């Protein structure tokens, strides 16, 4: 059991607002961890800090034994930390295919190939292949700005993971995706991650999704971790659920 990622005493505040209060979290290789919490609990901030977009005010991020606190995202990405976004971050003026081609040429192809022609048949073919594996290749030639939200989410995740990262951070992967598609999406993702031994950490608001697909759940409230255990244990704890959802467990609609 090796530690892939360790957050030690991570604190972050924005002016007077304290986003995270001293988070200690360890993720082991191969885990699929769900992070739950109310809005403002500090979930996305934590992901931003781990992936290098924000620098914590105190604390450390240790990835594969090395201190990577404050290392910018572009370097962390090459070291194996990938991240998808709550609002998909895409090149909206290019087609889905071009988005994928750009992702591949930057993440997978060697840096020396950067001066090669972009409109390359082989690169396009590889990109189409990746899109097909996520089931979105029928939108390949559509400009991303016009593509449905669920497809944008998938494209975002596909671009993030195309270089087979060691750790994937997913920010609300099923938000904006219709209820029939949510499970299909998570199923696909978890299958890929398990097959490639990718460790995944995902933020989710949909409790059913979290319960079904994560081996471990971390609950955040007001910037600190209030529960960190197997999914069943966390969901059995009425106090935790109340603080997350604001309702006592018996009152929750199923």
């Amino acid at each position, binding site marked *: 059991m090796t530690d892939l990622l360790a957050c030690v005493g991570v604190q972050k505040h924005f002016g007077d607002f304290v986003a995270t209060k001293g988070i200690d979290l360890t993720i082991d290789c191969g885990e699929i961890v769900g992070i739950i919490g109310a809005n403002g609990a500090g979930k996305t901030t934590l992901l931003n800090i781990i992936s290098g977009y924000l620098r914590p005010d105190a604390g450390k991020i240790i990835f594969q034994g090395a201190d990577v606190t404050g290392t910018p*995202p*572009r370097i962390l990405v090459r070291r194996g930390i990938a991240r998808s976004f709550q609002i998909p971050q895409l*090149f*909206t003026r290019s087609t889905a295919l071009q988005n994928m081609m*750009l992702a591949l040429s930057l993440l997978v192809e060697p840096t020396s190939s950067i001066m090669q022609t972009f409109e390359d*048949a082989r690169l396009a073919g590889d990109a189409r292949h990746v899109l097909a594996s996520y089931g979105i290749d029928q939108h390949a030639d559509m400009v991303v700005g016009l593509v449905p939200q669920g497809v944008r989410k998938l494209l975002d995740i596909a*671009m993030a993971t195309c270089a087979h990262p060691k750790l994937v951070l997913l920010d609300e992967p099923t938000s904006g995706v219709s209820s029939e598609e949510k499970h299909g999406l998570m199923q696909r993702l978890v299958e890929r991650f398990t097959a490639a031994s990718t460790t995944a950490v995902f933020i989710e608001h949909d409790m059913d999704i979290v319960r079904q697909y994560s081996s471990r759940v971390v609950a955040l409230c007001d910037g600190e971790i209030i529960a960190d255990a197997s999914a069943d244990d966390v969901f059995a704890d009425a106090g935790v659920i109340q603080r997350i959802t604001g309702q006592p467990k018996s009152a929750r609609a199923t």
Partner: protein
Amino acid sequence: MSRPRADWTIVAIVVIALALSLAAAFIPGWIRYVSQNALAAALASIGVMILLRAGLLSFGQGLFYFLGAYAVALLNKHFAVTDAAVTVMIGAVCAGAVASVLGFFIASYRGIFFSMLTLAISMVVYGIATKLSFFGGSDGLNIGTLSFFGYRPRGAELQIMSFRFCIWTSALCGVGAHIFLRSRLGKVLEAIEDNEIRLEYLGRSVRDTIHIAYAAAGVLAGIGGALAGQAARHVDPSFAYWTTAGDFIFVVLLSGQASVLSPFAGSFTLEVLRTFASALFPNEWQLALGATMLAIVLFLPSGLGHLVVLIVRAFKRRAEAREVIEQ
């Protein structure tokens, strides 16, 4: 369909350069002169176009135009260097070096900040140049006759050689710029305007990319300035004045950004228009220029080059429709 296709833009550049070189002796002298100015400005405009791909509008390319031109003039004056190729290369190196240094600072900025900072830097240099006699003050400097790898032609032959040198230098730069723009790095440039965060999360430093593009644009403007100086055999501080940079912007606006060939066409059109208009309407032609810019901005913001794209597209669609019917 995976036959390797010839890059028609490169073919076109080479063919046109060949044609012009061979016809050089038959082209009237004044047209050669106008063309050389047009080519010089076109190179600087290509630099503007490169930066515009990333959404950055530089009002300061005049600075590098100035540096390239003055490198030629100063080498000529203080070191008696007359070789066309050597002076252009040194001009390019000077401009590139300054652009690389400035890039450290400027690559942090976007939008209006980028535009106005480039403008301010260029104007500072203009101010210095008009005051220092080293730069010949506001009168500028003259450049002696050129030589070509030791060969010193005279009279008509000199003009023709100078013209051919200008053509091939421009062609080389054009090809280089095209390779840059069609490459993956070129696509990254385009993506910068779209979503910088995504690029950073794909492992690419946006700052470094802009730095590279800025240096490349600087080199192109430097070569352009050197060629302009050689054509006119004179340089003056107005090269660094921001309205010179404005001309380069106008060229890109006029011709659109479809390909590297566009600024060449646009620059040539502008030079011809300028020559005729300032002769026929000396007081009103600038007004007409500004009004034309406004018209293009309002009605054809993708430039006249886009008209060509639209026409080509219309033909393609007709051809496809015919294919479907004939199947």
